[in-house]
């Protein structure tokens, strides 16, 4: 068992990262924080709009985009690949919306079909087109650790100069700015699209703008946390905050707090367990979610039993008549 879980050594876990390994911790933490914060900000609306799994879909279907970008640009240059992934992400959301709107297929099935088909297409393309040696794993699994490795005397300066940091930071600023500027539009179109439409806010446009942001966040996070763990970073902070508060503003603040503490907690957990930091961040986030789950009491409902019944019945399959 000692091999499995290293003994807890407070000095190694808490002191070393901030003393002898200071610069590496700073590098990793700053990147992880930026990613976690952008994801948490957009995640709030995903959870409220019941579209959490779109993050999963986009992260899978980025593969064909990356392959095609690789074929077109002929380089492994991360900028080109990011653009490819981004376009694929947007195509995914458009396709999902198209299938969902133009047929009786439900949203969840549309998501599942679109992403699995696009992923299959990506794998097939890799095999079909000669001279690609892209590895799906390589593309979709990121390593936060690599960003912590440094050689220069002033690692932070080198970090700020790196294109990857600039991309992530830009995405973060954009997400934060849009969140602040369009808070009320996002709020009203998520809560009551009819009212938003009646007030002339164009909920469809807001939906697609949000999907673009989501693609951007997911794709830019690939290198840092990988395709699958970014889903957790989208959903966990929002879900945790959602259990603890009844106000969107507080929810956003709490989700940011969750993102920050699970990032820092996760990095220390990773030092202790000697495991990948991104996975540990998710585990820490899950832990905080469980705490919130434990302490949260379901708001007392006076009348809503009927309402719940109603919504449950509504969700039943009306098209499918028992014969």
């Amino acid at each position, binding site marked *: 068992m000692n091999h499995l879980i290293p003994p807890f050594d407070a000095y190694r876990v808490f002191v070393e990262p901030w003393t002898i390994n200071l610069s590496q911790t700073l590098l990793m933490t700053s990147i992880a924080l930026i990613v976690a914060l952008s994801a948490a900000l957009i995640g709030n609306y995903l959870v*409220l709009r019941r579209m959490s799994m779109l993050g999963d879909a986009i992260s899978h279907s980025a593969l064909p985009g990356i392959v095609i970008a690789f074929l077109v640009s002929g380089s492994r240059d991360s900028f080109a690949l990011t653009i490819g992934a981004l376009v694929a992400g947007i195509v995914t959301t458009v396709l999902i919306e198209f299938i969902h709107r133009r047929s009786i297929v439900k949203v969840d099935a549309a998501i599942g079909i679109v992403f699995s088909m696009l992923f299959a297409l990506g794998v097939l393309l890799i095999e079909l087109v000669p001279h690609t040696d892209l590895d799906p794993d390589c593309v979709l699994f990121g390593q936060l650790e690599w960003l912590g490795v440094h050689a220069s005397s002033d690692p932070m300066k080198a970090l700020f100069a790196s294109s990857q940091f600039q991309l992530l930071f830009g995405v973060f600023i954009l997400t934060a700015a849009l969140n602040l*500027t*369009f*808070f*009320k*539009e996002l*709020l*009203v179109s*998520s*809560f*009551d699209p*009819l*009212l938003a*439409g*009646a*007030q*002339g*806010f164009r909920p469809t446009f807001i939906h697609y703008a949000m999907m673009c942001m989501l693609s951007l966040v997911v794709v830019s996070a690939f290198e840092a946390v990988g395709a699958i763990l970014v889903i957790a970073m989208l959903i966990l902070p929002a879900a945790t905050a*959602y259990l603890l*508060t*009844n*106000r*969107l503003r*507080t*929810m956003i603040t709490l989700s940011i707090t969750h993102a920050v503490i699970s990032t820092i907690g996760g990095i220390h957990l990773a030092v202790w367990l000697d495991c990948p930091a991104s996975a540990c961040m998710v585990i820490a986030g899950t832990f905080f979610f469980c705490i919130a789950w434990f302490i949260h009491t379901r*708001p*007392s*409902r*006076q*009348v*809503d039993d*009927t*309402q719940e019944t*109603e*919504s449950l019945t*509504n969700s039943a399959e009306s098209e499918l008549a028992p014969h």
Partner: protein
Amino acid sequence: MTDPTSPSQEIVLETHDLTVAYDKKPVLYGIDVSIAPGQLVGIMGPNGAGKSTLIKAIMGLLEPAGGWIQIFGESNKSQRKRVAYVPQRREVDWDFPVTVMDVVLMGRYGHLGLFKRPGKRDRDIAMEALEKVNMIPYAGRQISNLSGGQQQRVFLARALAQESDLYLMDEPFVGVDAATESTIIDLLQDLRSQGKTILVVHHDLPTARQYFDSLILLNMRLVAYGPVEEVFQEELLQRAYGGRLTILSEVADATGEKSKVDLSAKR
């Protein structure tokens, strides 16, 4: 067809030959109404008669398949700020993390435009609206902690905060307690006395008579429109509620089924 208002008055809402279709299946046929200010109008009819559809079309949330709608003599979309809408309660997610105050403030968003945030004045207006519906003590509550009647009052307060001239309400009396019902109706009458116009989708025949000035009887088409006393006749009600005209609904089904008859096909 009788027009309950004198022609000299400004017309708040006018629809002409309004036909609305859901997924190309017509739900409303050729509706003609014109409503004068200061009216409390009930919209009544059996289930599936197109009551909510009419309201959504007036709000510009549904594109009419034929005919037109004018609000204050102009296109309905340009007059959005003058129209307030109270949706059915089940149309929103009551678990959404917003407080009563937040919801009422949403009523101000249409006036704020894209970049502005609600300011002190908006808050005052929202408070005032809450006061009118006796919901001030609940201002900080999350909306899922409210009873059905309270939720309805919140929606009403939101509509009040919109400071509109035309109010469209979709079944505000469904699932609310008697106290709320009387609060709401008092408020509506108060609004009417201020010269506002209110259209209310309503279900209950007995109360309709005492609540409204005029009634729109719908059953896919306009059965009757006029002052309550005129409309409240056995024969008209029978026509609205006594089953849809079978052929009309059959044809509606047929158009829905063959959905692609282009309704605007060139003649």
